């Protein structure tokens, strides 16, 4: 990240000298830093509202009910020998939170799952097939109700803020499937 950031800044300065716009450079910095603060404030109220609402959900048994419904579907993707009760619960909670767009809560369960899964695996320090699949499910982001994104669209007065839902679902599901197929193939090819 650091290299990329430095490259962008240096490149911009070189280009601005090349095009003779160097006098505008500081102006761009001051207007854009003002914009950063505005953006932050715009998002602040809404983000906090959703984290507040989801904190209520996190503390009720409802989320465990949803997680229970998911378990049979999930068990098809994983090697059952290395899955115990605890892994199963954390994993289901992680995926439920991800689907509802509760990122912060999802992270906590995700970390626990990764820890337990690598404990259950025989080879230490090497990704087990189960953990690899679990990570792909996390990186592909299967969001059914992208609360924060839709809230942003509403905030900026989009014509049809929910219009993006269908293409979004298609994108999420296809990219998740591609990721899972890729990792299943790679896990067979790349030896432990």
């Amino acid at each position, binding site marked *: 990240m650091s290299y990329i950031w430095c490259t962008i800044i240096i490149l911009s300065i070189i280009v601005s000298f090349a095009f003779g716009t160097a006098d505008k450079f500081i102006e761009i*910095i001051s207007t854009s830093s003002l*914009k950063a603060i505005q953006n932050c404030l715009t998002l*602040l109220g809404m983000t906090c509202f959703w984290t507040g609402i989801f904190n*209520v959900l996190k503390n009720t*048994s409802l989320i465990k009910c949803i997680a229970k419904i998911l378990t049979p579907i999930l068990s098809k993707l994983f090697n059952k020998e290395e899955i115990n009760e605890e892994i199963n619960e954390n994993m289901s909670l992680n995926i439920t939170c991800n689907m509802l767009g509760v990122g912060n809560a999802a992270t906590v369960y995700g970390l626990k799952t990764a820890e337990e899964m690598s404990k259950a695996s025989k080879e230490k320090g090497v990704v087990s097939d189960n953990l690899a699949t679990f990570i792909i499910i996390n990186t592909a982001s299967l969001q059914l109700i992208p609360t924060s994104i839709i809230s942003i669209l509403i905030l900026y007065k989009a014509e049809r803020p929910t219009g993006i839902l269908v293409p979004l679902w298609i994108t*999420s599901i296809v990219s998740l499937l591609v990721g899972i197929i890729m990792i299943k193939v790679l896990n067979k090819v790349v030896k432990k």
Partner: protein
Amino acid sequence: MIQYIFASIMPLLILICIVSGVIAKKNVFALFIDGVNEGLKVTLKVFPHILGITIAVSLLRDTKALEVLLSPICSLLEKSGVPQGIVPIAFFRSISGGASMTMLIDTIENYGVNSKESKMATIIMAGSETTIYVITMLFAAGKITKGRGVIVAGLTADVIAVLLAIILINMNWW
């Protein structure tokens, strides 16, 4: 009608959260306040990233450096229906969550919320994750040193998500 149903999902979700809290006899308001506090902390924590990235992206765009960079492949991008404006977010989505969120807002403000660019950026934002960060974090939690292709598979999924966002929005059905 369908539009109305979709739009009702969020109030319904809020209702479910509150009601399930009341049924479980929790102090719903206190939980809400705790959550808001958490959100406040997170936002404060990502602010430096937002500032750094907003400045960098504005410089890249307003000094015309982005145009210069993309000029060799510009006509190719145009022919395949890829607007220049979504290149930064497509590139940064897998690397930094704060950066890509900033770029989404930036895209909406610069191209308008109903533009092709904004719709594509929205789908890229919601349809993929901060892959590099998530993998680093989960590997650290499991003390993993050998990845066996997880990064390759994760990034492939991201590329597919970006391509689909471009193709689906260009179809103009939604």
